[in-house]
């Protein structure tokens, strides 16, 4: 796997990570609240979010944006290595129905590559921003069959 064009191209400064688009909807937010056992009302109770908390609608979970970033990084490194560490923070709150781009760019190449990563709003502003450090292991912990193959524009959330 380490000889594939993707593996080579992804190691150079300035190269893009394998970005994808998502458009979170209330069904995805429900599932994320359920699997993380998060009873916080701002993620499912729209009248409460508007009338009590003063938001326009329910909110996309900050950790869900972190989860997308980790999916991005895992897809990027799996052909040649593993993710060593990640840092991220949420900058803007996001409502469902917003089309988001999950992407990144390589900032350090070599055997310990690094990249800037983000979840971007339609106008290009960042909703979440961070960085990742990876380690090249020569593909030893990844089998050829392990690529994340769901590259649908909506991240598998089409309805």
């Amino acid at each position, binding site marked *: 796997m380490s000889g594939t064009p993707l593996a080579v191209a992804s190691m150079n400064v300035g190269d893009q990570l394998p970005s994808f688009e998502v458009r979170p909807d209330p069904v995805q937010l429900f599932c994320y609240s359920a*699997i993380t056992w998060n009873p*916080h*009302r*701002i993620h499912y109770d729209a009248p409460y979010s508007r009338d009590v908390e003063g938001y326009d609608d329910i909110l996309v979970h900050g*950790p869900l944006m972190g989860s997308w970033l980790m*999916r991005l990084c895992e897809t990027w490194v799996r052909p040649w290595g593993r993710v060593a*560490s990640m840092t991220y923070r*949420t900058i803007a709150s996001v409502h469902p129905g917003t089309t988001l781009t999950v992407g990144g760019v390589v900032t350090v190449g070599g055997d310990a590559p690094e990249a800037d990563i983000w979840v971007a709003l339609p106008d290009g502003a960042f909703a979440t921003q961070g960085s990742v450090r990876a380690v090249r292991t020569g593909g030893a912990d990844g089998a050829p069959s392990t690529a994340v193959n769901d590259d649908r524009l909506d991240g598998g*959330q089409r309805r």
Partner: protein
Amino acid sequence: MSLLTDEARSWLGAEQTFEPWLVTRMQIAQYAYTLGITDRIHLDVEEARRAGYRDVIAPLGFHLVIRHAVPNLLPISELAEDGGSDDMTPPTAAQRRMAGETSTTFHEPIVAGDEIRLSKRIGSLEEKSGRSGPLVFVGYDLEYRREGTGDLVISERYVRILR
């Protein structure tokens, strides 16, 4: 006005260790499908074993399930009006809490059948002045360890901002 009272300050160094969390194939599948991940090593035991793992492996990020679920495992009558829980938040006059930066170091993958014990410690506590008034930054140091061997699987630091 200061938010950080002496009582709140005494929370620096506070520690909490939770009961071990048994990671199941079902939870891994639920997490993967919620994120739109359909890679077979997260869903198919045979595929995962062919790739050299004991069982299906969790996608990167699965530890967030444990981190967020564990503090909310309370009788429903103990949850706040907004559905939240205290989750080791020092007592202040702050009205809102927001998520700050999270830094995560990945040591080993999480695999179905693992029992993961989360421990949490308040490693920093400081007040800063923001445009809207005082802000308190609470820094939590987290360790996710595999029961039995005690191996460190993930270490993490996250900051909660109170205002």
